[in-house]
């Protein structure tokens, strides 16, 4: 019983070995695995997904601009990944729960984060931009892969509560190397927990191409842990939406975890601190530009007569409005007082920290007395 494997000699060139419903040109093609999951998705529904993607791209551009202008300290752009993020997150129910990574602006958007939900943390005003319990999404995780275990734990809680909620968690191709992600697969499989793993394979972990992390398609990893998986075109919002519905339904109906690899591309830098020209060439970028997730939906909707100027204008207006709200919210933010850094370390009173508060407060008072501000 030798388990051999068709090794993907070059994972990058293998990007067409994916389940797909809309071609890059906007043609709707059949797919037996996915079709059943989008029977009810009509033009209106697809327009809504398109609208979300445009708004997301606009928020993302605004984030980049705010960073360039020194208004936020860092930004991790998601351009190119709109279909993956919107397609997956929009398939969740309101009472499901999301565990995203730092790049999932589209997930926090779809979960209902307000304008400040995108920028407070990147601006450095706080570590979190929203209350997780309000929008059903955890604080985006920076420790690579750690959130996948949190997702499984949350799903274990759901099992104990006996509800039919599902948890979804997002992580990158790079994250699949982290022990935590494999452990999350083990725990989820062991307990049959209602959790959907969404691996955003955007071809890079900062500068490292996916081939450093994986010598076989990432979706192929899950079955070895006992978890069914699907590899989907991450630039095809309809396919991602369909796959996610399959996965969610699998989990919701008590069949246990499911795994999706969305094959996409990070069009921008890793973050605003990154210089991707050092490690990838223009050609590659252009090849992926031709697969743009927004363009293909637009093309398809046009063939359906469901894309007109009025719609375009409405979407543009909504995008501008959202972006403007993000900007004004960002600019209006004020920084908390010095002493607040000692807040919320503990939920209950803590003698040691209370004492430090006394000292720090006395120290700050000295400046106040001298009419100065501490910490120039």
């Amino acid at each position: 019983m030798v388990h051999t494997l068709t090794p993907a000699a070059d994972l990058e060139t293998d990007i067409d070995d994916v389940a797909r419903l809309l071609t890059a040109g906007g043609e709707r093609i059949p797919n037996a695995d996915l079709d059943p999951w989008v029977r009810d998705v009509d033009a209106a529904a697809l327009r809504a997904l398109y609208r979300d993607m445009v708004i997301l791209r606009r928020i993302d551009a605004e984030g980049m601009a705010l960073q360039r202008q020194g208004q936020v300290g860092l930004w991790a752009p998601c351009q190119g990944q709109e279909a993956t993020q919107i397609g997956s997150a929009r398939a969740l129910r309101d009472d499901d729960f999301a565990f995203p990574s730092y790049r999932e602006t589209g997930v926090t958007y779809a979960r209902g984060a307000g304008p400040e939900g995108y920028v407070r943390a990147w601006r450095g005003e706080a570590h979190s931009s929203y209350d997780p319990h309000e929008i059903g999404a955890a604080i985006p995780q920076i420790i690579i892969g750690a959130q996948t275990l949190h997702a499984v734990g949350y799903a274990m809680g759901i099992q104990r509560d006996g509800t039919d909620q599902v948890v979804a968690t997002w992580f990158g191709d790079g994250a699949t190397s982290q022990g935590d992600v494999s452990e999350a697969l083990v725990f989820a499989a062991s307990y049959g927990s209602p959790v959907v793993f969404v691996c955003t394979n955007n071809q890079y972990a900062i500068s490292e191409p996916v081939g450093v992390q994986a010598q076989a398609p990432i979706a192929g990893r899950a079955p070895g842990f006992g978890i069914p998986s699907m590899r989907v075109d991450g630039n095809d919002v309809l396919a991602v939406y369909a796959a996610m519905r399959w996965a969610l339904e699998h989990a919701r109906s008590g069949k246990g975890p499911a795994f999706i690899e969305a094959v996409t591309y990070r069009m921008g830098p890793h973050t605003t601190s990154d210089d991707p020209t050092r490690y990838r060439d223009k050609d590659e970028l252009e090849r992926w530009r031709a697969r743009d997730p927004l363009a293909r939906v637009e093309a398809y909707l046009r063939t359906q007569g469901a894309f007109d100027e009025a719609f375009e204008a409405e979407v543009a207006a909504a995008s501008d409005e959202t972006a403007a709200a993000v900007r004004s919210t960002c600019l209006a933010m004020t920084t908390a007082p010095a002493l607040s850094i000692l807040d919320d370390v503990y939920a209950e009173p803590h003698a040691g920290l209370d004492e430090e508060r006394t000292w720090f407060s006395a120290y700050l008072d000295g400046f106040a007395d001298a009419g100065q501000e501490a910490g120039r």
Partner: protein
Amino acid sequence: MKGLRRAMRDDDKVLIMGEDIGKLGGVFRITDGLQSEFGAQRIVDTPLAESGIMGTAVGLAYRGYRPVVEIQFDGFVYPAFDQIVSNVAKLHYRSQGTVKMPITIRIPWAGGVGAAEHHSESPEAYFVHTAGLRVVAVSNPQDAYTVLRQAIACDDPVVFFEPKRLYHAKGEVDLDGDIADAPPMGLARVARPGDDVTLLTYGAQVSTAMDAATAAEDEGISIEVIDLRSLSPVDYKTVTASVRKTGRLVVTHEAAREAGMGAELIASVTERCFYHLETPPVRVTGWDIPYPPAKLEKHHVPDLDRILDAVDRVLDRPNSLTGVEL
């Protein structure tokens, strides 16, 4: 352990996770019988992965549960270190208080039981140095019961150290008390009053310290033994009151000396009671070495003689370092 059963009964959000805690009842039988009473959904045998245990506990806490995590042995907490430091300890802060992490991490702890390598670690200082965690160490059955219940009831993450040396200790335990009536979790306990020297310690070293105090009494030396119980925060009120009285301080623990708990205690006491100190405080600790092989551990874990030698030192009596330059 009766504290676990009681906590499980009191609050159905409490669940216990760990390796071999179900049918086996844990390698120390601490969870013996609990799975039959509470079922496999609340007494959860986990896959063999400490980061996984800790990370799923974080998720359960997100969901409103109060996981009690059993780390099988002290030396196996390190694979979970990232989840503890970056998530368990920080999430309440990172979320501006919107996400609570009422996780209790039980760690069978320290040496002196002739175990194989990695089974006798004293990692408490790592956690004491980690803001966002509370750290407690118990030294007797009553505290094992009461403080554990308090730890589980606490809305903050608590690292709970249980000395393996004391698993067989027997003692009267008041099972009915209300934890609200017990001394709060953060308070130290004067285990034995005395006038000449303050001897600070915690965990299994408390009983060694008590023995040392008894032995010293024969020589007319009166030692006040303080069982810290809480290592973070430290109850400096109790500690400094004692040092102000005795003017002499010895700290003993099993963990390595460099940047250990003893360093914290001596630094803080010196900052606070400098003018009351008659002589320099002294640490009696494990050496700065990996835990040695079982046959040699008696030379590593501070015993009565090494403690008394330190007591002699703070009393300016002849001792092993007389004439040795520091």
